[in-house]
């Protein structure tokens, strides 16, 4: 690395501890102007922690940080912004009751003597949104937006600061491809303006597409920095997880389910006005049925309706018998499990321990005449933590302190603990690192081999195509196609998903 | 038209008696009467009086939540041409047309005299008080003044016990801290009845005598049946209520009434 004059940000030996927990051990990083620098590491490797330090949200325990040749230890986000740092946080940090505009320009509202000019606020936010080319209404209340739209607002908020260094912490984990494209355009423009960009993602394809430099971290420690041209996905994965991985999508174990077998789940004409219409499909034991669509296609709503959380009309049969499911409790009693897409709101009790979260949907299993069987509960928690390789101190750790990807695994563990016959997975690998993804795919395969019927909702096309036996494609609340995996190509799927058939 | 009465509480038998007597007399005299309850809140009392003014009553009967604090309410009524009668608690700083009430200070002195007689002129005494109510302060002052006549009697503890439950805890704790107490004076029936319970719970019924103030039925029954309750200073709320309405009727008829109509408290010591 010769061109030292381009260096904007330089870190050496950065360490960060939370009490007994070491989040960063020894972190080095050199970021240059006009380049996209990706940080790659497993869940819990310390990436977000590092970004929070740079953003002035947390202080490092030890280490040297220099920005533009000067010492850089920001104590507040304002200080960081003033020094030229802009950040898009991993966890959404929006205020749901306020408008998009108010959120984007929070604390920097156009004002005179403390009085906000609502007109200028809207105008400025709209200008920014238009400049970035984001499909979001600045007048809308954040609470009324989908997760994807919220992520876009988060991006706009981060970019509303004019930074020399722009950080994106997993900006695409809840975006569909079309929205991700908008983001990549933006990044291209920033790069052309000579800004330094720090990018964090677990999606290898986009990393290879965007990055100039890639730094790999493992267990809070710097491993190496490589140039994009001089590496491959396989090598990066090996550096990251510390071993070689040949195939990301493990092959199916055993034969494909027999189409002649009676379906465990049969759905006919399921309709929820305003969300989806005429959803009809069958699911056999051991089958993985993929649901692909752009974000907002209504897949989550279909699953919510199946699970009794949303009212809908139509016919649902389980084991050939018609059922009406009006609550999650009834769904669980029918053997349905539902890994929801929004782990913070619908998935986890962040204040509680892993043990309590893992057992929460299967409480009847740990009950003897109403009393908790504490030992059985602990055993299950240990088993699930081991099976999913959740990175945690113990099963008594407070779930909210885990890294994002590890929290996602806890949601999975919670539903595996119910031993479902029908498992709905809604974006099961959102924010999960490659190694862990492989583990999750392996578990999905194994469940299928054991006879579990799986509905897999995902916005990652490779994931859907890599795992499913058959694929349902939805757009605008309607099923456009249901076909066996072999008959589908990525292009064909996208044609249906975007409604251009 | 008619009489508006603003009473300071409706959760005390004494005031329930006053209200009952007023209603009975108003009915007997055929005069409209409305009663508002201030619930011990001076600003609610002021609001009640303001609402009476809007309604246009002829006479206001008021038992002030506070002697001084009732001033603006009374003045507002008088400015609106309404005659004002105070009942039980006098008003300070303003002339009212008539005051009907117990002489609390004299009652306190009587309580001390009774205590002295019961204890043979010597012993240690505890007091349960309510320091934010002026009529109670007058009772306690009178009681202390009366005890000065007994040089061998000593006040060893004084605690606040506003509700019966609080008075019970205060009495228990005072007895615990001063096991040689021989007499307790409660500022009202509630305090005295609670003190009697505490005395029995501590097993001191042979040693401690309790005297109360108000003399409502429950307390009089206790004096009759419970050797610990040796006596109670008795007020006469029924007379007070009747007299208030009679006075108001006279005022409506344009007659003269005496400015001060004291009701001397009695001493009830049972059969």
């Amino acid at each position, binding site marked *: 690395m010769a061109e030292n004059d381009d260096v904007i940000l330089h870190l050496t030996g950065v360490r960060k501890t939370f009490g007994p927990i070491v989040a960063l051990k020894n972190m080095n990083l050199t970021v240059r102007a006009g380049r996209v620098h990706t940080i790659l590491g497993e869940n819990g490797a310390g990436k977000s922690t590092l970004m929070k330090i740079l*953003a*002035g*949200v947390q202080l490092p325990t030890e280490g040297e940080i220099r920005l533009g040749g000067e010492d850089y230890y920001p104590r*507040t*986000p*304002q200080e960081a*912004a003033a020094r030229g740092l802009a950040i898009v*946080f991993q*966890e959404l*940090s*929006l*205020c*749901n*009751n*306020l*408008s998009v505009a*108010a959120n984007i320009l*929070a*604390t920097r*509202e156009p*004002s005179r003597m*403390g*009085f*906000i000019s*609502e007109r200028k606020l809207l105008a400025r936010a709209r200008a920014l949104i238009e400049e970035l080319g984001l499909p979001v209404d600045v007048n*809308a*209340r954040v609470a*009324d937006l989908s997760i994807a739209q919220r992520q876009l607002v988060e991006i706009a908020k981060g970019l509303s600061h004019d930074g020399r260094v722009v950080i994106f912490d997993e900006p695409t984990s809840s975006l569909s491809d079309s929205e991700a494209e908008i983001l990549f355009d933006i990044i291209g423009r920033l790069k052309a303006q000579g800004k330094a960009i720090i990018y964090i993602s677990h999606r290898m394809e986009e990393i290879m597409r965007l990055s100039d430099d890639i730094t790999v971290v493992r267990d809070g420690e710097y491993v190496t920095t490589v140039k994009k041209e001089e590496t491959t996905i396989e090598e990066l994965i090996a550096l990251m997880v510390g071993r070689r991985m040949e195939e990301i999508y493990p092959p199916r174990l055993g034969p494909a389910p027999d189409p002649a077998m009676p379906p465990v789940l049969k759905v006919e004409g399921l309709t929820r006005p305003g969300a989806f219409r005429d959803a009809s499909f069958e699911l056999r034991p051991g089958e993985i049925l993929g649901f692909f669509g752009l974000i907002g296609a209504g897949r989550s709503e279909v699953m919510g309706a199946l699970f009794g959380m949303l009212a809908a009309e139509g016919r649902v049969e389980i084991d050939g018998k018609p059922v009406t499911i009006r609550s999650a409790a009834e769904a669980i009693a029918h053997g349905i499990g539902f890994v929801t897409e929004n782990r913070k709101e619908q998935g986890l009790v962040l204040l509680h321990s892993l043990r309590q979260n893992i057992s929460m949907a299967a409480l009847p299993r740990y009950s003897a005449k109403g009393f908790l069987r504490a030992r059985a509960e602990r055993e299950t928690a240990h088993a699930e933590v081991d099976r999913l390789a959740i990175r945690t101190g113990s099963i008594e750790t407070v779930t909210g302190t885990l890294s994002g990807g590890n929290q996602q695994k806890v949601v999975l563990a919670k539903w595996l603990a119910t031993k479902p016959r029908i498992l709905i997975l809604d974006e099961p690998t959102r924010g999960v690192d490659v190694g862990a993804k492989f583990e999750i795919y392996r578990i999905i395969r194994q469940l299928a081999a054991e006879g579990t019927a799986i509905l897999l909702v995902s916005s990652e096309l490779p994931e859907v195509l890599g795992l499913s036996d058959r694929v349902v494609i939805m757009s605008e609340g309607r099923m456009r196609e249901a076909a066996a995996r072999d008959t589908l190509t990525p292009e064909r799927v996208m044609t249906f998903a975007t409604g251009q058939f | 038209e008619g009489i508006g009465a603003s009473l300071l509480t*409706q959760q005390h038998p004494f005031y329930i008696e006053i209200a009952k007597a007023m209603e009975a007399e108003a009915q007997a005299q055929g005069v409209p009467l*409305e*009663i*508002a*309850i201030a*619930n*011990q*809140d*001076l*600003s609610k009392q*002021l*609001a*009640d009086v*303001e*609402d009476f003014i*809007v*309604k*246009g009553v002829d006479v206001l009967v008021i038992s002030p939540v*506070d002697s*001084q*604090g009732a*001033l*603006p309410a009374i003045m507002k009524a008088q400015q609106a041409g309404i005659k004002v009668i105070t009942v039980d608690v006098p008003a300070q*700083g303003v002339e009212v047309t008539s005051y009907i009430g117990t002489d609390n200070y004299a009652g306190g002195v009587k309580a001390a005299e009774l205590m002295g007689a019961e204890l043979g002129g010597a012993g240690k005494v505890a007091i349960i008080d309510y*320091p*934010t109510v*002026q009529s109670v*302060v007058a009772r306690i002052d009178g009681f202390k003044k009366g005890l000065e006549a007994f040089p061998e009697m000593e006040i060893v503890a004084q605690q606040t016990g506003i509700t019966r439950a609080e008075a019970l805890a205060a009495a228990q704790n005072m007895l615990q801290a001063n096991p040689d107490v021989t007499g307790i004076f409660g500022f009202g029936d509630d305090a005295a009845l609670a003190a009697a319970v505490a005395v029995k719970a501590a097993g001191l019924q042979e040693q401690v005598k309790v005297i109360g103030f108000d003399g409502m039925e429950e307390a009089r029954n206790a004096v009759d049946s419970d050797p610990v309750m040796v006596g109670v200073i008795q007020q006469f709320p029924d007379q007070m209520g009747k007299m208030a309405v009679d006075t108001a009727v006279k005022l409506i008829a344009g007659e003269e009434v005496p400015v001060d109509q004291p009701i001397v408290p009695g001493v009830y010591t049972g059969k």
Partner: protein
Amino acid sequence: MTDTAQPPQAGHSYLKSLIRQYGGIFLSLVVLCVVFSLTNDRFLSVANFTNILQQVAVIAITAFGMTWVILLGEIDLSVGSIIAVAGMVGAQVIGLGWGFAPALTLTLAAGALLGLFNGVLTAKLLLPSFIVTVATMSIYRGLVSLPTGGAPEMNMDPTWIAIGANSFLGVPIIIWIVAVLFVVNHVLLAHTTFGRKTYLTGGNREAALYSGINVNAIKIKIFMISGLMAAISGILLSSRLYSAQTNAGLSYELDAIAAAVLGGTSLSGGVGTMVGTLIGALIIGVLNNGMNMLSVPYFYQLIVKGLVILVAVYLDVRSKQRQG
């Protein structure tokens, strides 16, 4: 969807959006007024409305301060005691013969100071505001009684009394004060960066931290506002009563919170407006006055008051569900 955290947009559709946003409780207020006018001829008079506004002033002003606190997701139970302290400070300073202006200044300063104490304990020591203000409720109530040993203190300063007794342009000064404080609080909350920061902090504390908002400073300032509003209430109350009562404002914190919540302020923070709080306070005031006018016996008043509050919130919640 309208933005419930925001005051209605200015412009020609102001009334419309007002009705949409406050449909439920506004309706309750109107229905109450209609019922009381039909049952009592004297209810619908200028004199009586002046009455109501005067009677509701103390609760309304305290509730303005409380709205800030609740918007942050905190609570201030000490306001009732601060009301009493304010009256007592004023009366004592007048008693020293220092005159009206110093008395007023010191009273307001006392309110802000007691609020500051609440705020510092909550923000700096990270104690829950509920327990902090339960404790200071007791402490301040004890303090107020020290100068007089529990007795009230008269305060007959003519200017002090004039606040509660006189009128300006035919409207009682108390009502002017409520109106001005309403406008000030409303503008501060709805149209300034400080108000916006309050919504952000109450809505999502972490987001506020990430946006670089000094959450602690906001919290302390807001407890000071609450203390200040309570002190102003205390001044009005003692002015109306010509005296400082040591038990003044007892349990007013509940009325103030009820007014704010009735007006749509969410106890978990981030949602609420001053307009709503004002309507909430008016409902409580109209109810008390109307039942007095109808001579409803005291215990039935308690029951009716509770029932009306239930119905009002129910209508409000339902009208919001319908729209959303």
